[in-house]
């Protein structure tokens, strides 16, 4: 048994060494820099066409043997369309470097990636939010970009989308898009969005009619991700990525739980029990609730069913929780990450560069309706003045990156349990948060290092 185990470890190590040997990782900045962006022609402004990356001068690497770069992503609908457009455009112009994109159902992609990569079956690139970087870097599933991530190359992105991608002084990917919660409101029911949580509550009370299943506000109050805007807005925190410290129990956090409980128990504007996903979407579309805290994915869900009256919606920045203290949602930076077992790392980096170029970003924002990370995209009047894009862009400035340490996975469950007890139950905020703090610390102590 032991001998067999050693053998398998040796094989794994050998495979890793081999993989790395084949891909003298991104140590050639000049060649990589020369690769995609410069060769791409300028596209028409705001072009809905795939960014004209038609490179007339075939890059040097294209002369070599044919290579394939595989990308896994969890995109659907419009986002997937934009990605597919960009890839087919690339494939047409680079017969020797083909890109193969595989759409994996979003709830399966984590497991699939974690199982496939150690066996050498994974993709070269994966598109995923930054919060898994700590775990995957530690498990040796992804590798840092090294020299490829030159300051010039990073300049094209919003800084708050880059920072989350840095783990232990190394950067692990280039950002595609960012996701934050904003306030979605029903324009028919509410003329102007509230500026403060207090105003929101006053307006919301008028719409709360429990007997008719109508409420003033709906969000998943027992889920840390949706609770975070109140917590972070009050100056609280969850986890310190640098010092690896659990920061669950704090006066700010207690205040945040009390505030959420007031929404439910005192103001009674929240539905009974956690409402999420399908039910929440249905409520909003049926004008049963004027306000929801949701992210960019919600836009796609608002498409009316056949025969249904479309809901008139708009977005606004999350309100102030206290004077001068705006609600701050978690920011998720969705990035292209480089697999540690990629056998074509250099080619993969070229593709990463292409898909995150300013030109590609225009395709992604116009076709895919993505909140892209590239600064340039927002300089075009079409997007600078777009009412939805403008709000998300603004909210990104008032947000906090989601912690990305591996330890975070042991924080979510205790925190959600504390919220369940503190907001919907009879738990005192100090007690439930104290218990969650101890629980998370205990579980982190038990985690595999």
């Amino acid at each position: 048994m032991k001998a067999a185990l050693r053998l398998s470890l040796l094989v794994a190590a050998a495979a890793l060494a081999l993989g790395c040997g084949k891909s003298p990782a991104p140590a050639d900045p000049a060649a990589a820099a020369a690769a995609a962006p410069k060769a791409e022609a300028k596209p028409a402004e705001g072009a809905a066409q795939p960014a004209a990356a038609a490179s007339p001068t075939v890059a040097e690497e294209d002369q070599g043997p044919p290579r394939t770069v595989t990308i896994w992503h969890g995109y659907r609908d419009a986002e997937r369309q934009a990605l597919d457009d960009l890839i087919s455009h690339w494939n047409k112009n680079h017969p020797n470097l083909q890109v193969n994109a595989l759409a994996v159902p979003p709830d399966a992609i984590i497991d699939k990636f974690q199982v496939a990569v150690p066996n050498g079956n994974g993709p070269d690139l994966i598109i995923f939010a930054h919060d898994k970087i700590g775990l995957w870097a530690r498990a040796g599933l992804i590798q840092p970009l090294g020299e490829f991530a030159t300051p010039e190359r990073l300049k094209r992105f919003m800084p708050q989308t880059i920072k989350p991608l840095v783990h232990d002084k190394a950067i692990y990917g280039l950002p595609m898009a960012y996701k934050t919660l904003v306030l979605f409101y029903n324009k028919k029911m509410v003329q102007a969005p509230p500026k403060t949580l207090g105003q929101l509550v006053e307006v919301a009370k008028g719409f709360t009619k429990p007997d008719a299943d109508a409420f003033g506000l709906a969000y998943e109050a027992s889920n840390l991700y949706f609770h975070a805007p109140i917590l972070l807005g009050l100056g609280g925190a969850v986890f310190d990525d640098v010092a690896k410290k659990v920061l669950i129990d704090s006066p700010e956090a207690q205040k945040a739980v009390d505030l959420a409980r007031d929404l439910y128990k005192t103001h009674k504007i929240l539905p009974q029990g956690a409402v999420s996903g399908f039910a929440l979407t249905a409520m909003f579309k049926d004008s049963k609730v004027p306000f929801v805290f949701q992210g960019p994915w919600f836009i796609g869900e608002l498409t009316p069913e056949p025969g249904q009256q479309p809901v008139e919606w708009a977005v606004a920045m999350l309100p102030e929780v206290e004077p001068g203290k705006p609600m701050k949602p978690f920011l998720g930076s969705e990035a292209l990450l480089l697999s540690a077992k990629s056998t074509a790392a250099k080619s993969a980096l070229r593709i990463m560069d292409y898909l995150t170029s300013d030109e590609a970003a225009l395709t992604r924002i116009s076709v895919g309706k993505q909140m892209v990370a590239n600064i340039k995209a927002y300089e075009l009047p079409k997007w600078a003045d777009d009412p939805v894009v403008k709000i998300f862009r603004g909210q990104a400035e008032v947000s906090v990156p989601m912690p990305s340490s591996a330890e975070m996975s042991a924080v979510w469950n205790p925190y959600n349990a504390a919220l369940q007890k503190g907001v919907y139950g009879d738990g005192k905020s100090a007690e439930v948060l104290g218990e969650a703090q101890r629980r998370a610390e205990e579980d982190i102590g038990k985690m595999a290092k």
Partner: protein
Amino acid sequence: MALQQPILPPDPWARALAAALTAALVALALVAGNGALLGDRAAHARRVGAAALADGVAQAATESDPARRTQRLQELEAQRKPAVERVFVLTEGGADEFGIARGTAFTHGEPAKDQAQLVQDHAKTVTAEGTRVLQAGEQLQADRMFKLLDGDQLVVAAPLRSAKGSKELSGVGGAILAPMPAHQAPWWLVALAALLAGVLAEAGRRAGVRNRYSDAAVQVLLVLLAWLLLPALPAAPPAGVEVLSADWLVPHTAVTLVGSPLAHLWLLAVGLLISLGLGAFTDDHGRVWQALRRDPTPYAYVGPAVLATGLLIFIPFAVGVGLSFVDGEGRFVGVSHYVEVLTSIFDEHSSTHFFRTLAMTTGWTAINVAFHVTLGLALALVLNRPHLKGKAIYRVLLVLPWAVPSYITALTWKWLFNTQFGPINAMLSALRIAKVDWLGNDVWSNFAANLATNVWLGFPFMMVISLGALQSIPSELYEAADIDGATSWQKFRHVTLPLLRPALFPAIILGTIWTFNAFNVIYLVSGGGPDHQTDILITEAYYTFTVLRRTGLAAAYSVLIFAILLGYTVMTNRKTKATEAVNA
């Protein structure tokens, strides 16, 4: 089943074959284990030696006087043995606005390109971790300062401190080991061990073993004896491996058990398991081999099934058991995972509580199976009435919950129990009863939701089994009972129930096992909520696997679940003879 009596006269060939097979396998287990441990020990000694060198390099590199620094590094270079490919110093130049390290460079002994990348990656983790430790006001632990790289070709690196008392680390000094040459236990050692084990095994058999229990005891003694004798063999570092540290010279025997005494136990356990597993082949008369030789046809028929079961069930099971003894990095940790699971009752704030969860699981299973049996049996009795109209339709409708994939059923029930919009609460409202937050903070409402779902999923199976058994009861028995003037309760109690027993008991055992491990229902309906209180053992194991990422701990859970269910099955079997033939 006459175990004491040979079925056929002894067959010398079968005996010889069986003895040889045991001997070879036991010897291989012992020698392979020993070889691996010798290799481990050599690798460990190499690492210790290289680490000392790396430490020296890191200290030399912090020398402020450049001339002195060069001199000390040259001295270290001179001491370097061929097993160390190179020593190096990697200094960091600081970080940019995003915290990305910039200007990192090798100031001494730059490695080849692919290695340089790996070294840089590891150096970042070493310095980041080290800085974190220093800033937390803790001391740098020696083992924290070293980072091993892929397998045997490892980099050992010690962090540089720019100044005494500084809380920032500015790089690493280290050594790269040449790959460790492949090593194997010498063939003569294998042969000798095989011979030894064979002689002992045969001697044991001649000593007059008469039944399977004494046979097993003798096997145990033999393996113990072989293990005791093995250390008498000489041992040396594996051929071609240059040992870098005096650690190797610690007095040792052939079975060089680096690490804990548990490794001894491990080695013994493997030998014993193989030996006992082969008991069927190696008992006094080599019965299985003998039978195989006389009449191979039945074995040929079951062969493919045995092979498939082996591949799909026994090998994964064995791997699972093996995993429960090693940690995430493949190090042997003995029974510590089991100890951790079984003592979790003392961790007040832990998310996992083995005994609390075991109690919940047992209660959950008992209540569920009780519902399944009563409901299933009642419906079967109704459906079995000879003059019932539309029987076929009812039967299809009642089997339907079983036919729908369980996760779809589970998600549907979760929706039914939704607090605000669920139909169940809507019904309660219509009856002017306050809505219940089913999946909220109350343990028992969560439990009830799980229970409703699983009863719905489970009764059709019991119904189908009971119905089948009911239909096979000869009507003459009821006629005879009628003539005797039995009431319908008496008929049920004294005719129906006894004749249902042979069908119902195996179904109950099966139902218990399924319910005990009803992962889908718990995971999808209550999710273990509130706060893990409705978790059952299998969902708790899943939590340790996905959230805590402790494969070993999760494997230990699975083995314990298996042991519990095995114990339950064996016990029930003994009491009820459930799985034995009806006519026995």
